[in-house]
């Protein structure tokens, strides 16, 4: 059985707002073809204020589908339509204190029902653009269509690429066989041949020791280097330049990185925002380290400092 949170169980055993709202003026009927779940959401919207005065649901689905429906109705009651539309499927999952990755589509269905109901109220036709498919990466709940689309759009050709762009495969790595199969298919479709790495791709490793974080690309980069001499100021400028290049990517994920200190071949940084505790942090640091090495033409090691370490150092 699934490891459902207590809140999921509570909303399943004691669902709120069950049944169709009498005199509803907004109805959203949606279903998930692949998993067979279906949901009807009925709302009573105040025509003057556009506030959702009542919300009711009827769901054909599993425990988390019912709990997600119940949570959704609780979350949107009393909200204006436009406010309600801002409720994301992640918000629904958060309200329920998390859903298993296999069950995230249940929260998606709730959100879609809301969109359909609002469209119905406004006399619009709602079209679903969410593509559902087999769950590939259980660590980050990534489905096949997203992986396929990302490979196509960015011409990806390795498991590491897929992990960098979608996060799929960046966790436990058990899905790498499936990702390789997708890559094999997609590369064939564009007339290329998929060549997997003989060695395991370097994914989310913490660059703690020099040896463990040297990848073949890094070695190549450091070999290529002609070892120019820079002053300390020049070095720091170059490091800042490398950091500035990766920063937009991190900020897009609500994170950031800051240069703290440079001591010989060690570059100390601090990760902030969403980067903290992210399983991708190791990967981010490897990428940053690579960039800095390219700028400096020498081997360096990027070491992240935790908040505590920073405080202890008085920084």
């Amino acid at each position, binding site marked *: *059985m699934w490891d459902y949170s207590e809140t999921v*169980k509570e909303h*399943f*055993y004691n*669902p709120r707002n*069950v*049944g169709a709202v009498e005199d509803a003026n907004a109805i959203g*009927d*949606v*279903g*998930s*073809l*692949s*998993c*067979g*779940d*279906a*949901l*009807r959401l009925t709302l009573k919207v105040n025509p003057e204020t556009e506030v959702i005065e009542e919300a009711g*649901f*009827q*769901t*054909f*689905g*599993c*425990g*988390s*589908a*019912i709990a997600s429906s119940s949570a959704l109705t609780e979350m949107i009651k009393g909200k204006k339509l436009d406010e309600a539309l801002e409720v994301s499927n992640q918000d629904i999952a958060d309200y329920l204190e998390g859903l298993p990755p*296999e*069950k995230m*589509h249940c929260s998606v*269905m709730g959100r*879609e029902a809301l969109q*359909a109901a609002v469209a119905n109220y406004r006399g619009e036709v*709602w079209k*679903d653009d*969410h*593509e*559902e498919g*087999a*769950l590939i990466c259980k660590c980050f709940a990534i489905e096949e269509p997203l992986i396929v689309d990302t490979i196509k759009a960015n011409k990806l050709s390795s498991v590491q690429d897929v992990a960098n762009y979608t996060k799929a495969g960046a966790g436990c790595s058990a899905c790498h066989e499936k990702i390789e199969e997708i890559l094999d298919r997609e590369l064939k479709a564009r007339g290329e041949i998929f060549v997997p790495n003989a060695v395991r791709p370097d994914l989310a490793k913490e660059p703690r020791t020099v040896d463990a974080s040297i990848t073949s690309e890094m070695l190549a980069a450091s070999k290529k280097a002609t070892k120019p001499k820079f002053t300390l100021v020049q070095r720091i400028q170059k490091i800042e330049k490398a950091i500035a290049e990766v920063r937009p990517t991190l900020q897009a994920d609500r994170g950031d990185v800051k240069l703290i200190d440079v001591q010989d071949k060690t570059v100390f940084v601090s990760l902030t925002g969403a980067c903290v505790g992210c399983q991708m942090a190791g990967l981010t640091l490897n990428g940053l380290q690579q960039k800095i090495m390219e700028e400096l033409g020498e081997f360096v090691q990027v070491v992240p400092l935790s908040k505590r370490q920073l405080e202890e150092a008085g920084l």
Partner: protein
Amino acid sequence: MTVSGIYFDNNATTKVAPEVLESMLPFFTEQFGNPSSIHQFGNQVGRKINSARCQVQNLIGAEFDSEVIFTSCGTESNATAILSSVKAQPQRKTIITTAVEHPAILAVCDQLDKEGYTVIRLDVDEKGRLDLDTYKRQLNDDVALVTIMWANNETGTIFPVVEMAELASKAGVMFHTDAVQAVGKVPVDLRTTKIDMLSLSGHKLHAPKGIGALYLRRGTRFRPMMRGGHQERGRRAGTENTASIVGLGVAAELAQKRIVAENTTVRGLRDRLENGILSANSHCYVTGDLSNRLPNTCNVAFEYIEGEAILMMLNKKGIAASSGSACTSGSLEPSHVMRAMGIPFTAAHGSIRFSLSYYNTQDEIDRVVSAVPEVISRLRQLSPYWSKEGPLKENAQAFSPTYA
């Protein structure tokens, strides 16, 4: 989870019989020897393994005890059988199986499919039955193996494997059956059949998990999956799981003694459960071949509601069963068995399997029969396919959602 729960999920696994547990315990303590060793520590254990082999031999009616190879589970037995058949006959490139096999068969066949083999997955009709004429037409010199389950784990439907093995044998084709659900529930007498290989699993018949066996008819061409030491006559290397092998032996002996009770007492309980549920709940029906199925299994499809939700509600009442619903498996698809039978998804998702054992009682049956209606009606109140009166499907209010 209440300790005094009602366990109706015996096709998933069974409890270890007390006699089995007792027989195993010495092999964790004083009888720790390696059966391959020449000294007294090993020697005694080796003899116990041989007697367990004979107990399994008797249960399945094998002609020779050396036809029984101990493995780690049903899955290993299945994989060994399939991979052996293709390795031993490299010129043959086709496998015949059914659309409703266990994943332990289907996933291996899918892999061979990717590697260039032709896999023929025989379809079933609405009751889960095979068409033997179609099957006969597929038998030819390119077929390395026919692998057909003896009984289906979800519906209990029994396939005519004895007859199908005869047909395969006439066509000169090797025949394997995954009999994990059948052994111990229906009489099996292999010496009178043309079955070349048969898989069985300990934990389905009150032995522990982690032990299984492969029957390999004498003379059947074989290539081991695990090579190494000379254990199991070199056909399955690796130091024997002695305690579990001894346990499986005792469980096999118990199963043999209880085969009549399975087909009288247990069958009676199952029928009582089934009739009770059908008469107390509307819009539900039994799936599978009612006239030809395992005596312990009953699969009921409750229309317009979803299986996981039913199981969670039953679980709260201390009742354990299982479902063919997509949501219980972690895949998005409902059970491939239900789909193969063409069960509509509003019913397939609500299919619940009750599987009994020798240890269930009439009192438990009656308690489940009286507990089910409340669960079903509560979930139907939540269902968009249902109104107070019944299903909405045939009127203007019919629920027809936009599908993603």
